[in-house]
């Protein structure tokens, strides 16, 4: 049965909403297929506004991987802003894909990528607009399988009631395997209905189907156990790891939007995984081991990506890009190739050392200089040992001064506030560091005309990290600390004027903390918040702390717990954590030991350069570190020049 476009109805609403182009599709790289010529159909969603969701690498990669299959159709959908949501409800227009404007409800799979937990309320809006029951238990064969992925899916318990399944880890191969299971099940005439399909997914042992697991609680509110409620599903569900990134050189045809989006660049992931071991960093923990893409593949991807898209910016992305074993050759090769063009190359890196500046110098050879960012993350040497960010104050000052003396006039410094064991003094050290940076920088640059921006993020303890047991600081403590820091920065007027200060309030972080480490009971809070109008919680102009607190007060006392219990409470070693049955490969004993090491300010090396320290991932997942150098150079070596049309 064919599915028709809702565009004629939508078109009537578009003149009445802001930035209608975001709902129209028509991007370069977009694929529209004949519905009836395909057997398995995916609607992929990034549950935030188009301008944030379109550049998302994960969705773009899966979109392309799926559409390369002849009998598979993948389309995209994003959160609609409240102005259009109201009009859609009023006029009966359902949640639609931007590619062919088909109703999401008609697809086989509705896959959502959660980079952050703050997208949960947007998922409920999308389900509601799509006409799909919010609760998994209320769905039948006419509804898509609602599938969660992305980093937040390493603890999908807070949304366990709303999703049918979750995939942990890399998606490239997972989407193809799921497609195969659905294809076979449909070819057999959908035996056993929806339950049978979910069972087949669960039997892969790497797709989590929450309905097949029961959670029991202790009288004090802690979890007693999470166990399968049927014999044929695994006790633990393992994450996916895509090995050999050279075999998966996506995106080949990046989506190029007509609307303005947060990133307009060709982004290539130069490696996946990170073993620096920063204890707050969930991404670094759950994406192990390190798997590098080779210099030659990166070179080809950049060339093809730019030719296809017409972008003038390239981002060499990863969790710590300067750590690629061939980063030097990669940067000089690309700089050479694009020296006579207006292409700007950038390398986000969290490293704090002079090598970073060498690379940035290299990349800016054609005069397109991008910003320099350093991430010491902690203000004092003590707190940096707690979080395992191994950099001394002297290193940092020396590095930043080198940047100023090499012509940079502005650098950015990233820190966190609310870290375990943090005191006011640790945070005030940020001001002293910034003062010294400006003082030394003025001397080195020989001018007063230099600036630095201090950017502060709120710490949120995340599952599958050594800080998964940590207590969060109260928002009022965070806000008071940030106020003190601001005063300290401006205590010297001359230096203070050269320092920009950006920060986030403590309240959204606390709610992110609730959602990150929550269990199934938090699902009802999410639903209450959404019913009270909660949308776009990642946007400060839409986020309402009081709405979340009210919902917690309404829902959680019934379970004998509260917001503080989930956030500011430190967990004990033997407590069953809501995600213990979900296997990221990290050994829980190793995580606990690293948490203890953290408390005694003991640092952990990086297994890229030092022997294995038994975090557990490689043996558990049957994976290994894949790093170079390959000894190869960037190909092709011919510089790009402009040829007449």
């Amino acid at each position: 049965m064919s599915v028709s476009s809702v565009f004629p109805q939508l078109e009537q609403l578009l003149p009445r909403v802001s930035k209608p182009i975001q709902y129209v599709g028509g991007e370069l790289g977009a694929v529209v297929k004949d519905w009836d010529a395909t057997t398995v159909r995916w609607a992929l969603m990034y549950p935030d506004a188009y301008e944030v969701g379109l550049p998302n690498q994960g969705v773009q990669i899966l979109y392309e991987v799926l559409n390369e299959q002849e009998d598979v159709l993948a389309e995209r959908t994003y959160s609609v802003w409240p102005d259009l949501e109201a009009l859609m409800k009023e006029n009966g227009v359902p949640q639609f894909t931007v590619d062919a404007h088909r109703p999401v409800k008609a697809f086989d799979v509705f896959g959502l990528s959660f980079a952050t937990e703050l997208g949960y309320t947007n998922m409920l809006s999308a389900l509601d607009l799509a006409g799909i029951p919010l609760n998994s238990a209320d769905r039948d064969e006419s509804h898509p399988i609602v599938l969660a992925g992305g980093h937040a899916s390493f603890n999908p318990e807070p949304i366990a009631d709303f999703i049918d399944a979750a995939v942990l880890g890399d998606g490239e191969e997972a989407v193809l395997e799921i497609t195969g299971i659905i294809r076979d099940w449909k070819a057999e005439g959908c035996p056993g209905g929806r339950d049978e399909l979910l069972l087949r997914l669960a039997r892969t042992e790497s797709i989590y189907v929450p309905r097949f697991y029961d959670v029991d609680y202790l009288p004090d509110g802690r979890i007693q156990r999470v166990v399968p409620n049927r014999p044929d599903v695994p006790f633990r569900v393992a994450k996916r790891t895509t090995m050999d990134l050279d075999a998966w050189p996506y995106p080949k045809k990046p989506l190029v939007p007509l609307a303005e989006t947060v990133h307009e660049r060709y982004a290539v992931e130069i490696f996946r995984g990170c073993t620096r071991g920063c204890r707050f960093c969930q991404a670094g923990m759950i994406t192990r081991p390190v798997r590098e893409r080779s210099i030659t593949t990166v070179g080809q991807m950049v060339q093809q990506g730019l030719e296809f898209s017409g972008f003038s910016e390239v981002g060499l992305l990863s969790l710590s890009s300067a750590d690629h074993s061939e980063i030097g050759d990669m940067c000089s090769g690309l700089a050479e190739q694009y020296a006579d063009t207006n292409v700007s190359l950038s390398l986000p890196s969290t490293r704090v050392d002079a090598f970073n500046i060498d690379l940035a110098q290299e990349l800016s050879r054609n005069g397109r200089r991008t910003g320099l960012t350093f991430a010491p993350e902690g203000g004092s040497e003590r707190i940096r040992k707690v979080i395992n960010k191994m950099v001394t104050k002297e290193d940092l000052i020396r590095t930043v001064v080198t940047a100023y003396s090499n012509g940079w006039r502005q650098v950015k410094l990233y820190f966190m506030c609310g870290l375990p064991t943090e005191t006011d003094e640790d945070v005030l050290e940020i001001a002293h560091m910034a003062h010294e940076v400006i003082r030394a920088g003025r001397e080195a640059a020989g001018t007063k005309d230099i600036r630095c921006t201090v950017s502060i993020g709120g710490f949120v303890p995340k599952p599958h990290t050594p800080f998964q047991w940590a207590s969060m600081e109260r928002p009022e403590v965070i806000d008071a600390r940030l106020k003190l820091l601001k005063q300290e920065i401006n205590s010297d007027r001359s230096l203070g004027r050269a320092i920009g200060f950006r920060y986030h309030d403590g309240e959204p972080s606390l709610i992110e903390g609730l959602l990150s480490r929550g269990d199934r009971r938090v699902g009802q809070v999410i639903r209450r918040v959404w019913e009270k109008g909660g949308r776009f919680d990642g946007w400060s102009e839409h986020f309402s702390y009081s709405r979340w607190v009210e919902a917690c007060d309404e829902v959680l006392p019934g379970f004998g717990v509260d917001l503080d219990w989930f956030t500011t409470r430190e967990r004990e070693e033997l407590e069953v954590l809501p995600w213990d049955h979900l296997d990221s490969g990290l050994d829980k004993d190793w995580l606990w030991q690293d948490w203890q090491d953290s408390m005694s300010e003991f640092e952990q090396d990086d297994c890229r350069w030092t022997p294995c320290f038994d975090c557990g991932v490689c043996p558990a997942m049957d994976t290994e570190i894949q790093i170079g150098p390959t000894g190869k150079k960037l190909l092709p070596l011919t510089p790009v020049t402009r040829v007449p049309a």
Partner: protein
Amino acid sequence: MQRIRLRYAKRGPLRFTSHRDFARAFERALRRAAVPIAYSQGFTPHPKISYASAAPTGVGSEAEYLEIGLQAAADPEQLRVALDAALSPGLDILEAVIAPEGGGSLADRIDASRWRLELPEVEPVTAKEAVAAFLDAPEVLVERMTKQGRRTFDARAAVNNCAVTGEADLPSGAVGVPCAIIDLVVRQVTPAVRPDDVLSGLRVVAGLEPPVPPRVTRLAQGTLTAQGEIVDPLDADRGDVGIGGR
């Protein structure tokens, strides 16, 4: 430096492209098509592109114009084909001509536009009455939000011609639903009078409230002749002077 003038269209769903959106897409298309575009001097060089007045977001157009400067001479038709292929379908490059030296600017050749307004679910006879009332009024004050805030101005004086020309088939192909078509010629004045201002005017003078949003398309831009025709601004560059209005 060779200068090339292009006429392009904004069609179908892509009529919701704003001018800024189009400008970004066009710059990417220049890179995709490897057009030898000239750049301005300075610390951050910009490609040499100048736009004639752009149709509002949401309004389709068959007659948008821009001019580009090239580092090296190019064949206009090859350039047109390459750029058209590099843009999404719906943003279509229709024509390219070489701008002769000293031939005056594009902007000097544009002082009016012809628009087609489709009003689904509006009876032509109702539209005719409203248009007649509008044309009879010496002045029709309408309001619009501008960057300077809410402004009130006359929408009547700039209108050179406004006529109900017939009835169209609805895009959805629905049978039995009327759709009035208005042919509108408006001179460029300050503040600009746009088709939606004329629609506001029809509401002010005759209470005409289309039940669904009207669909507007710019059919032509150029110099308004005494006969009320619009001369395509590329005619002079093409050498074959004629009366346009396609």
